[in-house]
């Protein structure tokens, strides 16, 4: 604060903001590198390798599409490889937009590798054909947005889980407890729980209108292909359940004042519904969605 001299150039006014009452005032962690220069270098190398892996995987998806001469989402194998590519794409896009998300890499890449492992072993299907009902441009709109929504919801869910860990860690610290060494080295680097919470809310809220659109595009396509736009087919039903679950989550945050852990549980339940719609319905329930071939 400059004082005194009447001719001194004064600072521009500074805006002060404080955490809302009832929220912990904890600063964000430094990120996975832990504030270490070498760590930061490793982080950059990891991100570069992720970009490389993304390009290779994308090439794989495109090659598959070329081999089957259609969009690569005719069965679960194709859906899985496309989905994990898009999930990494969302992550890289957030990084490119200069969002503070590098900390997510470890968890995201681990689960993407798991997903790819399942795809090439259990789910692998040789190139095959599509039934005529799957020929419609609404299908392309519907499935591509569904995959994108899934990928973004997934990023939201990963953040929510990390939020829950970080939140208990902060509670423990605030209560005078001493978290384990491993937990500390891990969790102290993450952003503050309040930031994680906010980020997951933004991610989920941002993609919710697109998810609504996805369901509507599906209904329009069903209207063209099957003569009814809504028939409570299991896939439709679970898309609806997922939608209502996310609506609950948004409602809870917007109106019922359920921030924090309770809202986080709702968000995880909603993502669980999305996952079940994808894996569970294909495996356990039979319906009209013919790509369900495992």
């Amino acid at each position, binding site marked *: 604060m400059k004082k005194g001299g009447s001719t001194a150039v004064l600072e521009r006014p500074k805006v002060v903001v404080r955490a809302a009452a009832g929220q912990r005032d904890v600063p964000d962690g430094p990120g996975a590198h832990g504030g270490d220069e070498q760590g930061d270098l490793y982080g950059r190398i990891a991100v570069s390798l992720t970009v490389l892996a993304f390009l290779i995987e994308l090439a794989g998806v495109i090659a598959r599409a070329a081999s089957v*001469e259609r969009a690569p989402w005719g069965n679960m194998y194709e859906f899985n490889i496309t989905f994990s590519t898009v999930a990494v794409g969302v992550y890289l896009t957030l990084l490119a937009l200069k969002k503070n998300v590098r900390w997510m890499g470890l968890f995201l890449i681990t689960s993407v590798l798991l997903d790819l492992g399942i795809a090439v072993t259990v789910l692998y299907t040789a190139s*095959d054909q599509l039934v005529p009902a799957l020929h419609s441009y609404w299908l392309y709109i519907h499935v591509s947005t569904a995959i994108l929504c899934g990928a973004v919801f997934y990023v939201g869910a990963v953040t929510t889980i990390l939020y829950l860990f970080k939140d208990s860690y902060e509670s423990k610290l605030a209560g005078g407890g001493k978290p384990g060494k491993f937990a500390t080295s891990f969790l102290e680097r993450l952003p503050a729980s309040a930031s994680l919470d906010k980020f997951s809310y933004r991610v989920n809220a941002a993609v919710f209108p697109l998810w609504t659109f996805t369901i509507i595009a599906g209904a329009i396509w069903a209207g063209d292909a099957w003569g009814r*736009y809504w028939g409570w087919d299991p896939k439709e039903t679970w898309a609806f359940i997922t939608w209502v679950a996310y609506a609950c989550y948004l409602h809870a945050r917007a109106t019922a004042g359920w921030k924090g852990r309770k809202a986080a549980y709702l968000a995880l339940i909603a993502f669980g519904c999305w996952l079940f719609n994808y894996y569970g319905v294909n495996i356990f329930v039979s319906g009209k969605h013919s790509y369900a071939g495992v």
Partner: protein
Amino acid sequence: MSKTTPDATGTPPAGDEDLGAAGSQLSTAPEDTLNMPSLGVIGWVRWFWRQLTSMRVALLLLLLLSLGAIPGSLIPQSGTDETKVADFRKNNPTLGDLYDKLGLFHVYSSVWFSAIYILLFVSLIGCIIPRTWQFVGQLRGRPPGAPQAPDPTAAYTTWRTETEPEQVREAALALLKKRRFRAHLAGDAVAAEKGYLREVGNLAFHIALIVMLIAFAWGQLFKMEGNKLIVEGGGFSNTLTQYDDFKSGSLFTADDLDPFSFNLKDFQGTYEKSGPNRGTARTFQADVTYSLGAYGKSKKTIIKVNEPLEIGDSKVYLTAHGYAPVITVRDGKGNVVYHDAVPLLPLDSNITSSGVVKVMDGYRDPQGKREQLGFEAFFLPTYTPGNEVSSTFPALGNPVLNLAGYYGDLGVDAGVPQSVYQLDKTHLKPFKNGKGQQRENLRPGETMTLPNGAGSITYESTEEWANFQVTRQPGSGWALAGAIAAIFGLAGSLFIQRRRVWVRAVRGDDGITVVEMAGLGRSESAKVPEELGALADALYDQAPGAPEPDEDSTETPNPQAVPAERPGK
């Protein structure tokens, strides 16, 4: 206020309450009250209504709706698959009875599911109406004046200037108006607000949900859906009796059928011949002529799988296709007793098909006795030697029709409706030759002679058939309009920030003007402080900072001495 974590105590974080009077109108969301009613029927009704329209109950009903939808996706539903329901009942009789009582075979039209969504929508309406009024009131009124003690969650900044307070306020008013805030002068401060579209979007979204529900319910009540299989050259006119099967909503009457008719001139299916997509339909279309009304002019058109024909309020979909071999049956004397194209049902994607030929009357056995004939037909559009049981390609490459005949009584007169695709063999005997039952493969033009002068059956040629589904689903235009409005409303509600800005300018005791600015958004967002900073910068250019008062002048409290702390704390 003590800083307890919201989770530790289980009480909701105080965000909304903390907004206090200044923030209270930033949303029209109602407040939750759980007060017990005072006595009396009206008191109870009121209490019930308040509960129903409270956010807590709305949330609960939403949760219930998603939970309630689950069983319908796991248990077979009579609306979609009657046979699966029957199977389930047969395999689990006790569970089946229980499910029946609970309406679990038709969840989405069951009493309890309806109760959930009706309550939800009553709650929704009960929520929208007061919110709309309140919002209209806010639009007509003015943004509330600056609070004496700024809200602790607001973004805040302050500086001192030599510009007159009136000038600062005027400049602030002009600035805020230019940035499309609704702003006005209230006392020594300017109050401004922006982002009303958020509320508009939110209301539009919830109203759109109601529109969608009504459209959906309307469609369910007045819908119809019928199927008709037509062989090339055949026709159909839209009356109840012509349908192979027919379903309709409870308020649909036969008068609602659109008067039209159409003929199937030609069905075309061509398929990919090689590559990974071998067998995939390339073209799959029906050439039809249709006419509206009894004497309408006939028009030509093409119906494809995802491109139905729209006539009046009805849509005609092409849903399936298959082959119909043309069969001629002769008796022992050579008289034709049957000549028709017999539609066979496809069994797989290469259209391996099966069906039956029923000769009901006109046939007499070699002794001259009246008798009925039945033939089981098994058809491979592309027969590859070595693969006797299935076709290897969906097109007519090398068609082979396998026939086995029976004689006796078809049982069609017993009054029990019978499938046209199955034989009831209780009163039938197979035709036999030396090696047991006679069974032969025929190519087009070939004839199978029945043993002992019983006659013959000829496979003349092959026609194709197509199955058409005629549906009418009123209200779907409204449902679509509602859906589109819902998406835009939702986007507005989620992406637009509603926020308030106050600029207070007062002359301090030392004659220097103190400017204070505060910004408040309803949802935590980095945008509000950012915007406030930009506004402050712009205003600062017009009301530049004044030098700090002398350090030893102690008579006046210096607002900048403790910038993080604000009055009221």
